[in-house]
């Protein structure tokens, strides 16, 4: 089996994708490069693996169809994150509409889904952090996850979410404070 060509940067990968002969190999590399990062970005928002898997597949199908027309005005990395974020938010919105739950019910639902995860133990710090994150508003949750876990620079995050750097910094600051408050023992 011939070794797959390795494209050293996004530009080379995009060029290969536009060639019919190398299109599939280039796409394969793109999937392998970004699948885990995008998966976790989605999974942190939807919690369930099956939901995350469905969304991730939809993201890459959209990428396959639109990649040839990608104009490189933004980086491939931010473009992929933008698609993944939009797909995730659309999925969450549709799920909310189907269930027609109130805000308080939604938070309870997220907590229940988190508690249903295999190996859940809210005495462990990682799970406790996840529980605290589920209490944040949707956008704040996105900002916190992108910054805290993905370590995304604010400038790139601004491209992904279409929000100013200042607003994102403020949002992250608020999110951190809320999570801190969650961790503090009650007086």
């Amino acid at each position, binding site marked *: 089996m011939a070794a797959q060509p390795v494209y050293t940067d996004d530009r080379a990968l995009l060029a290969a994708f536009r060639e019919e002969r190398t299109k599939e190999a280039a796409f394969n590399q793109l999937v392998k490069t970004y*699948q885990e990062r995008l998966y976790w970005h989605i999974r942190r928002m939807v*919690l369930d693996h099956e939901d995350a*898997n469905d969304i991730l*597949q939809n993201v890459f*199908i959209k990428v396959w169809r639109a990649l040839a027309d990608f104009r490189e005005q933004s980086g491939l990395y931010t473009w992929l994150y933008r698609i993944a974020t939009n797909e995730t938010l659309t999925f969450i919105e549709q799920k909310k509409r189907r269930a027609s739950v109130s805000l308080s019910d939604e938070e309870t639902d997220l907590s229940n889904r988190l508690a249903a995860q295999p190996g859940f133990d809210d005495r462990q710090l*990682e799970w406790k952090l*996840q529980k605290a994150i589920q209490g944040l508003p949707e956008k704040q949750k996105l900002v916190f996850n992108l910054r805290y*876990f993905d*370590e995304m620079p604010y400038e790139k995050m601004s491209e992904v979410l279409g929000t100013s750097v200042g607003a994102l910094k403020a949002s992250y*600051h608020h999110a951190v404070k809320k999570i801190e408050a969650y961790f503090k023992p009650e007086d």
Partner: protein
Amino acid sequence: MKARSPHIVDELKTLQSTLAEVPTAMPFEVPGGYFADFADTLRLRFLLEENVTLPDPLPAFGRLTTPFVVPEGYFARFPFLLAEALEVSILEAHLSRKNIFKAPQGYFENLPEQVMEALALSAALPEGGNKEMPFAVPEGYFPEFSGNLMARVAEEDRIKALALVAEKPKTIPLRPRISLPVQMMRWAAAAVLILGVTLGIQQAGTPQNTVATTRRALAAIPENTLQEYVHQHADDFDIDMIEARLPQSIFQAASPVQTLGTHEIQAFLSDEVLL
């Protein structure tokens, strides 16, 4: 575990957050081999999305090849295997159209004889069958029925009437009785009185009173003036109308108009026309 970026840690420290110490490892589980197989899963999804006819057998996409083995020709033989699994009697009923219902033993052999017996029995019966009712009716029931019925109706009416007398009907006022204060009653009486006077004054101007006024005005006219008026306008009067008012004897004697004197005409006019 991946080392944290110093930028992120510094930022958390600036925010005086203890989150810098919290591990970033994801506690969620992912099915084994998920990421290794994802590209193949995605490729299969593409084939399905693009309505591509999948090759048979499917190309070996790593772990996507099913580890289970199906005996050769299993799907071709499946309907027969299913038939075998079903109860034989039901299967036979469907496949060979054999009747699953059973008739009593010897039923068909004895059937002609039974039919003949039934025919003989029906021939022995009188024409049209016996319509007489086997039930007894008290003697004179039908002739007396009508009279008894009317007597009962009359009796029921009498009982109802007695019941009505015994139980005096309750008068239910159509609307609740309102007791007005005396002062209000006085004002109401005064209003009725004023209304009556007003209507009386209006009645004074009616046609009957107008006739009385005309009569008084005519009485004031001198007799000579009236006579002159009659002489000047005698031709204008309706002769037929005058004749109709005169006695029949006058017509027999002569022409009514000729026999009429001025006095009679004046009397007529004063009685019938002017009044």
